[in-house]
């Protein structure tokens, strides 16, 4: 990649920032050059963000129908999967899967609720009543 071939796609998620790339300068030497983003990279990142948002919306509609506990909504809102949440909370993956059921979630001890609140950085009231995703 030559220095003037470094992508300058001004991608929105950099918020005006730029990233360092290595490219060939005039005398054939590699140098750091600033790039305002590559649309290929932007697409891949936004795809990952969108996937979490899609899962969050899905979890929310199941929550409002009473088929799912609010835990799923917060999990995806914090960009976590069951595996990530398990690593961050010390709960086993199978217990988290149980806690996703509304009946089981209702019976959770205050101690366990406090643990989830700590992981998500929210209050218990917020945990039980997540706002509708945008």
């Amino acid at each position, binding site marked *: 990649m030559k220095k003037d071939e470094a992508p300058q796609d001004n991608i929105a998620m950099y918020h005006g920032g730029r990233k*360092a790339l290595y490219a060939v300068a005039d005398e054939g030497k590699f140098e*750091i050059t600033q790039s305002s983003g590559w649309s290929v*990279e932007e*697409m891949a*990142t936004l795809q*990952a963000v969108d996937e979490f948002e899609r899962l969050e919306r899905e979890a929310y509609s199941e929550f409002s129908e009473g088929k799912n506990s609010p835990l799923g909504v917060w999990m995806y809102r914090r960009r976590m999967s069951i*595996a*990530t949440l398990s*690593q961050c909370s010390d709960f086993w993956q199978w217990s988290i899967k149980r806690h996703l059921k509304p009946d089981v979630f209702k019976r959770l001890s205050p101690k366990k609720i406090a643990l989830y609140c700590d992981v998500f950085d929210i209050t218990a009231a917020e945990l039980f009543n997540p706002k509708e995703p945008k």
Partner: protein
Amino acid sequence: MSKAFVHSHAAHCESGVVSSLLTHAGYPISEAMAFGIGNGLTFAYLPIVKIDGMPLVAYRMPPKSILKTVEKRLGLEVKIKKYSNPQSAREDLIKMVDAGKFVGLQTSVFYLPYFPPEMRFHFNAHNLVVYGKNDTGFLISDPVFEHPVEAEFNALDKARFARGVFAPKGACYTIEKIPERIDLAKAIKKAINRTCNMMLYTPFPWVGLRGIGMMKRAILKLPTHPHKRYASLYLGHIIRMQEEIGTGGGGFRLMYAAFLSECAEVLGREELKTASSMMGEVGDKWRVFALSCSKACKGNEYSVEEIAQKLQECRDSEERVYRFLKGLKL
């Protein structure tokens, strides 16, 4: 140690921090050089280790490995500290900063307030340098950002004590001592040979050139996956691992090309310039591969055979570079 800190913009967090700390400790070294002698370059494809349901794809060695390898190769004395609670970690950091030290930290990306929201994911092995503090927080030189940034005390505590894979546990490190004489040429030769051997002759099927072959076979099998969205998410995941997470382009291959061209000057071997431009072409091929993956992600018509073919070209041209380097008998 000089008081003033000069921020420099780098492509990758760990090599950037190592370069910055060493430079301020009195041994100026570029990011590419730190990455190269730290044996940062590799390829690994681990289908058993999942990141949000996707296999781990890595273009560089595991976290901390650059720091530790550079320490060993140059004979430095690096002090790494971990903490059991945020209070003592913060107090200790304040003490070090007040004493005029520049401190490297391992943190999570998700909790760093200055990261753009779209780019915050649960990745715990980010590196940055703390070079001072003000009333509300720490002054930070994050190598992947163009300018110095700041983070409030509480926010940085959270980032330093995030849990999960690679949990940082407040890890911080300082360079305590640099030997009077450093044989850079020797370190370079050792590092290049080690990288070539790993890529060419690894006994593990998921590492090096064999790993690239394994990923290629996985791509060819994508159309048989029961979930429709999986193929698109999978290819997007590869692009992110290769281009988004601060690799300097082409999955660190372009940075390695920069390293090789610096080596040509240090060792006085013209052939390394050839190796450098060969590696540059490898980096470009990886970017072409990313481009063809992205067309598939957008939902356009695509053929996995074509994508796999692009990947095969990356693999073959990489092999030529390593064989060429081995032939130099450094």
